Structure formats: structure tokens, C-alpha cells
């Protein structure tokens, strides 16, 4: 499973493009949830930590693996919960549904 190839570089570059074009369209309104969301997602490094903690490659790697699993799990659990908590708060004003498009002189 070890070894780095050009194929992985392709994956990185293409994922970077997908990320770039998706994220430029995220409105400033949601920039904080975006940050906590990407942080939670990048806690996928948990996957690497899990293998390290369970592969039994000696006491030191196992210990480091344990700490890494703990840190990554903090971000997975805490990150997704807090993102959800934030997104839950963003509500539209739906009392007057037939309102003018936002910003067009306001509702008088």
C-alpha cells in the first residue's frame, strides 16, 4: 500500500480543482460553517491514524497512533456536531413569503 505515484498527484490536483470551483460559490454568509465543515472532513486523517494504532508495529507507533486517533476523533465528532449546530441557526424570514428580491430597496 506504500508508495507514491503520479496517479495520486492527479487525484490531488483534480480534487483541488473541484474544491476550488465548489467553494468559490459558497456565500460569505456560510464561511464559518464552511471552515468547521472542511475541518471536520479533513479529520479523515483518522483513517491513517486507525491503521497506525492497530497495525502493531511496535509500542511507539501504537502510542502515536492512539494519540492521533484521539485527536482526529475530536475533530470528527466535534466538527460535524458544531457545523450542524451552526447550520441549524440559519433561517430565512418566512413570515412574509412573497417578499421582494433581497436587497431591492427593502420591504416597506
Amino acid at each position, binding site marked *: 500500500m506504500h508508495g507514491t505515484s503520479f496517479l495520486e498527484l492527479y487525484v490531488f490536483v483534480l480534487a483541488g480543482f473541484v474544491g476550488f470551483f465548489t467553494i*468559490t460559490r459558497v456565500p460569505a454568509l456560510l464561511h464559518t460553517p464552511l471552515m468547521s465543515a472542511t475541518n471536520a*472532513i479533513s479529520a479523515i486523517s483518522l483513517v491513517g491514524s486507525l491503521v497506525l494504532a492497530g497495525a502493531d508495529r511496535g509500542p511507539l507507533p501504537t502510542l502515536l497512533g492512539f494519540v492521533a486517533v484521539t485527536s482526529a476523533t475530536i475533530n470528527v465528532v466535534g466538527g460535524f456536531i*458544531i457545523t450542524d449546530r451552526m447550520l441549524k441557526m440559519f433561517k430565512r424570514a418566512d413570515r412574509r413569503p412573497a417578499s421582494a428580491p433581497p436587497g431591492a430597496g427593502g420591504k416597506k
Partner: protein
Amino acid sequence: MSPRTLVIEAAYVLSSILFILGLRSLTVPDRARRGMQLAALGMLVAIVGTLVNREIVRYDWILAGLALGAAIGYPLGVYVPMTAMPQRIAISHMFGAVAATLVGLAEYYALGQGAEVSRIQMAALGFEVLFGALTITGSFMAFGKLQEILPSRPVTFPGQNVVSLGLFAAAVALFAWLLLEPANPRAFYAMVALSLLFGASLVLPIGGADMPVVISLLNSYAGLASSATGFAIGNNVLIIAGALDGASGFILSIIMSRAMNRSFTNVLFGAFGTPSKASARTTQGLTVHAITPEDAAIQLAFARLVIVVPGYGMAVAQAQHQVRELATLIERNGGTVLYAIHPVAGRMPGHMNVLLAEADVPYDKLKEMDEINDEFKNADVALVIGANDVVNPAARSDKSSPIYGMPILNVDQAKQVIVLKRSMNPGFAGIENELFYGPNTAMLFGDAKASLSKLVQEVKGS
């Protein structure tokens, strides 16, 4: 490909798709929550898929780590108040970087202290621990400043930039050496140590107002460290998720520095907070018009369009609920209340939006700068709550001002400006603000929360 590998790879493909869909959902506020729940499902799929990996022979430490992490992460997710969000985000960058760095260290150690590491793999491991280590200490410093364990003003000493750059150059030089000769444990561990020091010395001199850029950059570095981990252990889902995180942090840093009209270099090495008295225009001889809550309330009660401009001061005073209460009263009187959000208001991207959403302000009333700037001239009252540099007209007119060229909110075009401010102390950047001396500006001094409560009382009474 064995059936087991097939299952694992299929799980990773599925979770990559769910991650991308989750991020995509953030482009539409109404769909965001559901999309992120899908992303969380993707994470679960990836974890379960990994647990059947043949390399895993014991589960005791895994279970212990998962349990401990969940026990720490759950309260960090559920109980941290929205006002503490900047430091919460900063510390989570640190946890992510710790995981990536430790995987890199252990990988190097287990491969015969580098003896079995190929040069290409060394490149991946090197990036992983370089980015990881500097993000660990950098994020911790940012956390300390935002939590006010450390002074939030820039901590500087002579020759600081030279020291920082020297540390970084030394770490990069060791990295280059390792690429030629991977089996060099001393150089490897020294590189990690230097990178840790560099992260701390990079963030220490950066002041509170520049935190949006720093947090975004650290977000990006944490992502790149995860991605490099993926390269080092040959795992595509890590590469993808890390690249997404890296791209997001990168975009946010660009948006933030553009909103301050400054370059990365200037933010990182400029030590903005040092007051430049010589350059800023003097305001001596100008007078400030103070206003009583009673008079301010009358103006607000009869206003047809009020634009609220929140800043870090609102976050400090935790006044978002009082703002909402006042807005409800104005709306009941037939007025309209909109909110003008500058990209760098507060301490992280989107800080003000989260606080106001917490106070039940509907998100369609939260306007971005470009959207609202033309509305100020129609506004009867612009209510500035603890914002300073983002409304300073010097950014438009005074070429000698350190913030010249920064896009600002056109608050001064409103018919009446009411500024809620604790005292006449200049803002974080130490720059005088002419807005406060303008003919149509009235200052309402005092704690933002207390002032707003008084305004609410008065508007109710009128």
C-alpha cells in the same frame, strides 16, 4: 484485488463523493444542513471501511482513542458558545494537524528510521510533518490569542522576521537534505522541531484583527498536511479530503486579505498593530457629538430603513440578542432593518453571520458588502456596533493611512450615523476614525449590550 480491498476502496470512493456533495450543499443555505449530514455519513463509511483493513491486527488502542476522542469532541461540539467560535476553530486546526504529524512521525520511525523510505515517499512525509508541525503551534498560538491566554496584540521583538524566516529556511534546508538522503533521523526530527518553532514565531507577532487571514491560512495548511498524509500512506480519500480543505482555506485567505487590501506577506510579516502615528491624519480640533439613548431611540423609532453594522465589539459585548430585540421593535414600527457584514468584521470569516443567526436574525437580512453598499444613501440610520476600521473613510481618502485602499462600508453616506462605542480609544489598528467626527455622526458611549438594552427600553416607551 481481493474482496476485502474492494470493499475498502468502494467505501472510500463513496465517502469522497459524499464529502464533495456535502461541500457543494454549502452553496445553498437551505440545503446546507442536509448536505453536511451526508458528509458525516461519508465519514462513518470511511471509518467502518478502514476497520476491516488487513493491516489492523488489534483494536484495543483504536477503541480507546475513538472513545477518548468522542468524549472530548462531543462537549466541544455541543457546549462551546457561538461567541467562542474563532478559538474553537483554531484549536480544531491544531487537533487535525496533530493527527497528521504523528502519523508522519510514526511512519518514518517504523520504516527503519527512514532506511526503508524512498525519496518520493520522503517528499510526502516531509510535506506532511512540515505543514503539520507549523500548523500545530501556529493554531495553538492563534487559539491562545483568541482565548486571551496570550496577549491579542502583536508580540514583537527586534529582528523577529529574520528569526522566523531563518527557522523556516533551516527547516526547508533539512528537508532538501532528507530528500537526497532519507535515512537521516536526526535531520528529520530537527526539521519537525524547527517547523514547530516556526509556527509559533509566525503567529505570535500577528494581532487580533488579522486573525481572519491567519485562521484561513492555518485551515489551508491543516488540509495540505492531511493530503500529504494521503500521499505518504497511499490513500486517495485522504488526498481528496485534504485537497478540499486546502482549497477552502486558500480561497478564504484570499478573500480575507483582499477585504483588507493587503497581501499575505504583509499580514504575516507586517506586524500591523504597531501604531503608525506619523502617517495617520490628526483629528485634533475636531469635536465629537455625543447622543443620549433617548435621542437615539427617537431616531430609530421613526426610521424607515436602518442598517446595522456589527463589528468585533458586538461579539465582545455579546450584544447580538439585544440587536435582534431592537430590530424587532423597529420592524414593528414599520421600519426595515438590514445588516451590513464586512468580510473581515470579527475574528474569523463569517463571524458576524454566525452570531446574528444565533440571535434568530433571518439570513436573508444579512447582506454582504457589495450588496449593501449602495443602500447606505437610502438609510435613515446606520447603527455601527463595535465596528471601527471597516467603516473608516480614511480607507477611501487618506493615502497616508495604513488602511488606505481597503474596501469599506459606506456608512458615512447614511442620513444619520449612530456609533455605539465604549470610549474614544482608537481601534485595533491604532488609526483615528474620521467617521466619528462627521457632521451626521452621533456617538453613543458605553458598553454595547447596555446601550442597546437602553435603546430597546426607550423605543418600547416611545
